[in-house]
């Protein structure tokens, strides 16, 4: 069993009327089966309302399944006794950096998690230092989070999760509100945590270029996973992705358009290097 596994997972948002009667039921997850290996870098794509964020919230038991099951490191997320344990193992980073920072200086914010877990004071400071180092924010430890850029704030949020020594980090559109530099820094940070520290990464994004180097991609629609595969397989399905309100990286789209016009290129070209090389061979 992988680190995150689900079996026929379903989840319904239920709206109640004032008298408690059920007004409407919205099935946000409609039968998801996933099995994510420890150490993988996973990207989840899907249009607004496809169920990505709801699925993410199942992965650290913020939400629990209506039907079916979800396991984190073998522990069922319906096991209320183990909730804190699950949330330590699977940390979450959200879209808006301003909504998840609570400390008045950076190091206090990062220490909040381990402090709540009852880690010894000495150990807390050690963890704070280690995790700020891992996101390259150590020099800002005594700064006020208010004065940081969006990208820096997100890296502090990631450090806050790292201080709890998680096995897995789930990031729900962490770059949506950042400028290109901030985006690059955050993606570089999570990639390094994945490679160097072996942390399993689950990244939800609308930026296709952030998905190019993933180990696997899941594409969601209507609460289900409709495409699953390595980036090359997924991004070679240009028309299918368009139907799902998504797109492909610019270089992949250009290669696809050239292919349509009769140029003999491979399917699913992902980088500028690949495209230039293939065009050179044709010339």
């Amino acid at each position: 069993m992988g680190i995150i596994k689900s079996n026929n997972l379903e989840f319904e948002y239920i709206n109640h009327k004032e008298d408690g009667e059920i007004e409407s039921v919205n099935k946000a997850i409609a039968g998801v089966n996933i099995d994510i290996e420890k150490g993988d870098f996973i990207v989840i794509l899907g249009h607004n309302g496809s169920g990505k964020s709801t699925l993410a919230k199942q992965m650290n038991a913020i939400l629990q399944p209506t039907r079916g099951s979800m396991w984190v490191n073998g522990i069922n997320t319906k096991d209320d006794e183990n909730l804190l344990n699950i949330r330590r193992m699977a940390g979450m980073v959200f879209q808006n950096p301003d909504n998840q920072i609570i400390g008045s200086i950076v190091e206090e914010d990062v220490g909040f998690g381990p402090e709540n877990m009852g880690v010894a004071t000495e150990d807390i400071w050690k963890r704070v230092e280690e995790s700020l180092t891992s996101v390259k924010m150590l020099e800002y430890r005594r700064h006020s989070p208010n004065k940081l850029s969006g990208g820096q704030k997100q890296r502090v949020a990631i450090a806050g999760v790292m201080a709890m020594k998680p096995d897995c980090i789930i990031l729900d559109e962490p770059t949506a509100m950042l400028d290109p530099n901030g985006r690059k820094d955050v993606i570089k940070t999570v990639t390094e945590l994945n490679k160097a520290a072996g942390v399993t990464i689950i990244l939800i994004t609308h930026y296709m270029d952030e998905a190019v180097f993933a180990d696997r991609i899941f594409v969601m629609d209507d609460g289900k996973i409709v495409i699953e595969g390595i980036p090359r397989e997924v991004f070679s399905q240009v028309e299918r992705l368009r139907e799902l309100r998504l797109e492909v990286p610019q270089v992949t789209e250009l290669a696809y358009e050239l292919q349509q016009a009769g140029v003999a290129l491979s399917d699913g070209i992902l980088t500028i290097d690949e495209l230039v090389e293939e065009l050179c061979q044709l010339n």
Partner: protein
Amino acid sequence: MSIKLENINFFYSPDNAFKKHALKDINLEIEQGEFVGIIGHTGSGKSTLIQHFNGLLKPTSGHLYYDNSNIFDNAYHLKKLREKVGLVFQYPEHQLFETTVLKDVCFGPKNQGLDEKSCIERAGEALKLVGLKEKYWDKSPFEISGGQKRRAAIAGVLAMRPEVLILDEPTAGLDPRGKNDILNQIKKLYQETKITIILVSHSMEDIAKYANRLIVMNQGSIYFDDTPRNIFKRYKELEAIGLAAPQVTYIMDRLRRKGFDVSLDAITIEEAKEEILKFLGRDK
């Protein structure tokens, strides 16, 4: 209409230790019918700049003219200016508040003093311009999708029939289709009504596709002010200030180095495709 900025300087907190020189000696003129993109990283002064365009911020020094009138003259009617220069903030859907979409869009014209019938007329016109179908007009703004909310919010500004529409990252957080839909709608609006558009964006790809002029901000100053095509050719200078050209520019550049006779003028996928096909001799 024209907006003219002369030697504009702006300081945040000018009187204490947090003093920040946010705009440095800005000179620029925007004419009727332009589609201007503004790019720059966080803290470069983009948002400060656009809040000058409708007098929300008053420059510490310098002059700002709208149709040759100084907007900070005592006699100038700033409220009227804000009807002519509509500003759509980031995440504008957070400002929706009425019980129905139509009522929400009526709020602007109602404040302009129009009677109910004209308000509804204006609101309907604006909602059509942003492509929000009639079946949504009587819904609560909170039960429609993210992309639809965003359209409703933009319609709220359009209902005042502005001459200039300023949009601060109008597609942040939307999925790719939602993003393209909104930008295409803005382009259509631009072509049909000849309204002046000022678009703040983080995406060079979007600027390449839609804008006919690009202003690049860096540390409170204007770094480039030219056509996107001319600016992207100087991608090394863009990189020096932490920005980059669209992916297409890099592809064309790499191909040229490999001996392909293709033009760096191509900045969109469509143009790049034409150039490459022409070079390979398959354009017929």
